[in-house]
């Protein structure tokens, strides 16, 4: 009789422990989403507000650089804005996972959407990185010359905005891993 009671107590403790663990995971997921949101929105704003005008100009030309001059950077801003919007909209669902740890369908939905957003964000960040690299180094084989010698502060700011975006990519990978672990855990 005693052994039976002990078994029940142990089982209930294990259930409590696993419940606590999944709640911790859900809280961590919620925090990561907020951090990723701030990263993406900051990157988008930083890139969108970047412009530089050179102090000298010709009779008809004024030397001015901004993100919209390069299509890859425009795509970067749009991608980051979309992902930050998604991250804000996904917060209520992440909160549901804190309250109800056994939800499954919503977790699968979040994984699918997270993967789609990871793809979009990585594409935006990588295409922008390729262009920023070209702006810094140029390419002698194709006569694409470096523009960062002229537009120095412009290049610094767009390079800075890339960092935030790549951090958000890493955070999205972590979010997918957390969701996968939560799905695979047996209750």
């Amino acid at each position, binding site marked *: 009789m005693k052994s039976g009671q002990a078994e029940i107590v142990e089982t209930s403790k294990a259930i409590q422990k696993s419940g606590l663990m999944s709640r911790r995971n859900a809280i961590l997921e919620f925090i990561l989403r907020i951090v990723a949101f701030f990263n993406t929105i900051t990157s988008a704003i930083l890139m969108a507000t970047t412009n530089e005008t050179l102090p000298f100009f010709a009779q008809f030309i004024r030397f001015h650089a901004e993100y919209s*001059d390069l299509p890859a950077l425009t795509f970067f801003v749009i991608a980051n804005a979309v992902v930050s919007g998604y991250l804000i909209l996904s917060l209520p669902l992440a909160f549901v996972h804190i309250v109800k740890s056994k939800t499954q369908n919503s977790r699968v939905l979040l994984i699918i959407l997270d993967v789609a957003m990871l793809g979009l964000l*990585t594409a935006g960040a990588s295409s922008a990185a390729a262009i920023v690299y070209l702006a810094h180094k140029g390419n002698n084989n194709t006569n694409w010359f470096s523009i960062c010698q002229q537009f120095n502060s412009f290049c610094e700011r767009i390079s800075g905005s890339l960092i935030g975006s790549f951090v958000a990519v890493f955070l999205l990978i972590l979010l997918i891993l957390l969701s996968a672990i939560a799905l695979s855990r047996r209750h």
Partner: protein
Amino acid sequence: MAKESTTIDVGEPSTITKSSSHVVVDEKKKKGFVAAAAGGGYKRGLAIFDFLLRLAAIGITIGASSVMFTAEETLPFFTQFLQFQAGYDDFPTFQFFVISIAIVASYLVLSLPFSIVSIVRPLAVVPRLILLISDTVVLTLTTAAAAAAAAIVYLAHNGNANTNWLPICQQFGDFCQATSTAVVAASISVVFFVLLIVISAIALKRH
């Protein structure tokens, strides 16, 4: 003198009760087994689809990497000291593309045993979880390579008037065609990876 009589209710023989209880347990076991088998069947189907997608992705990634690697064009005219030639190694982004996609193709080959394990044991969680985590990381690498190469290919096709980066595809038409094909193939493999991750997520669901 009135007799006090006590009536004793004798229930059904214990053997019957025992046997009926055994029957109930057996029925429950049967139901559980049938449910597990059904779940296993649907998960086995997903695992087979996963395996086939991996095979297709291997073909596409090897194709993309080799097409980019062999992309080369030499113009028919040349000066005394210059010969106009374009190869993938003239662009650091294309070098990154070739290396990344080759790594991805290698990973896909190495992931096939795990996919086979998922077919043989559809209810096993660990192989699925390993595949999902690895696929997510490799998806990021593939997307990064494809997007970076796409940005350069776009620039090669259209140029950029604001920065005086002129298009080179008017001269090196075949080279641009090959690089564009490689980028399209890599983009298709990205879609395949997304599908693989979705399949793994659905298969991880408990029933």
